[in-house]
């Protein structure tokens, strides 16, 4: 067990525990905080994978901006505890096994498909500089399009959430 492997299992355990906690908690604010834990763990995993820029973006945009938006909306709407309903019986006995089946099948297929190439541990693809070069050369058109997308999203959000006068 090297240090990296220990670190990976620690972070993976934190991420999975956060995800499970997200599902188990009944109050949305607790779920939101668990999701922030998952995102922090994932950012550390990106660092382990050698993707420093993605890790920074994950913290700044996801854990920073998007989750603040979530928490803000939860507080704005004064969201309370989730209601319990009777529909959950069938979901529990049919849906949960199907969900876990999907989970394990996906994990198995991923592990097996990757197994053929796993012998080569992979090279650290890149520095942030190369990422920037690629983003502003090959992907410059999609990059500019995302700014239009963000603009439209802002307009849409403002129009939707505006109070009818």
């Amino acid at each position, binding site marked *: 067990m090297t240090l990296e492997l220990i670190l990976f299992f620690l972070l993976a355990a934190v991420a999975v525990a956060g995800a499970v906690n997200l599902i188990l908690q009944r109050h949305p604010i607790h779920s939101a905080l668990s999701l922030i834990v998952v995102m922090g763990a994932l950012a550390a995993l990106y660092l382990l994978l050698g993707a420093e820029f*993605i890790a920074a973006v994950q913290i700044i945009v996801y854990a920073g901006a998007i989750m603040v938006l979530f928490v803000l909306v939860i507080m704005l709407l004064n969201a309370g505890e989730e209601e319990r309903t009777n529909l959950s019986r069938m979901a529990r006995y049919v849906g949960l096994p199907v969900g876990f089946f999907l*989970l394990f099948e996906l994990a198995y297929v991923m*592990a097996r498909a990757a197994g053929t190439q796993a012998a080569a541990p992979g090279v650290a693809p890149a520095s942030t500089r190369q990422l920037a070069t690629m983003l502003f050369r090959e992907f410059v058109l999609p990059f500019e399009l995302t700014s239009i997308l963000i603009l439209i999203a802002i307009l849409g959000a403002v129009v939707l959430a505006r109070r009818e006068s």
Partner: protein
Amino acid sequence: MTVVPLPYYLVLSAILFGLGAIGFVFKRNVITIFMAIELMLNAVNLAFVTFSRMHGQLQGQVFVLFVIVVAAAEAAVGLAIIIVIARSRQSLNVERVDLLKL
């Protein structure tokens, strides 16, 4: 360089995606359902970065950036829709949102 076998990351990604899907189906609060979607997007991002590492190519990381941008746009619009729903029905329970128009 890395001593962690890359399939481990893929398995973790699959587990997170599955948990997100389970949360998406099971939760009743529309905000929590939205958070489950974000969890699934995060799982996919982890798979992208892992594949990028596996092949030694950067396109995967660029794609992750675009996924994050789209997720931000989606969160803005989705939360606005949630606010409208909460205003018109006085409830965040998805089981009460079964009519398109009140």
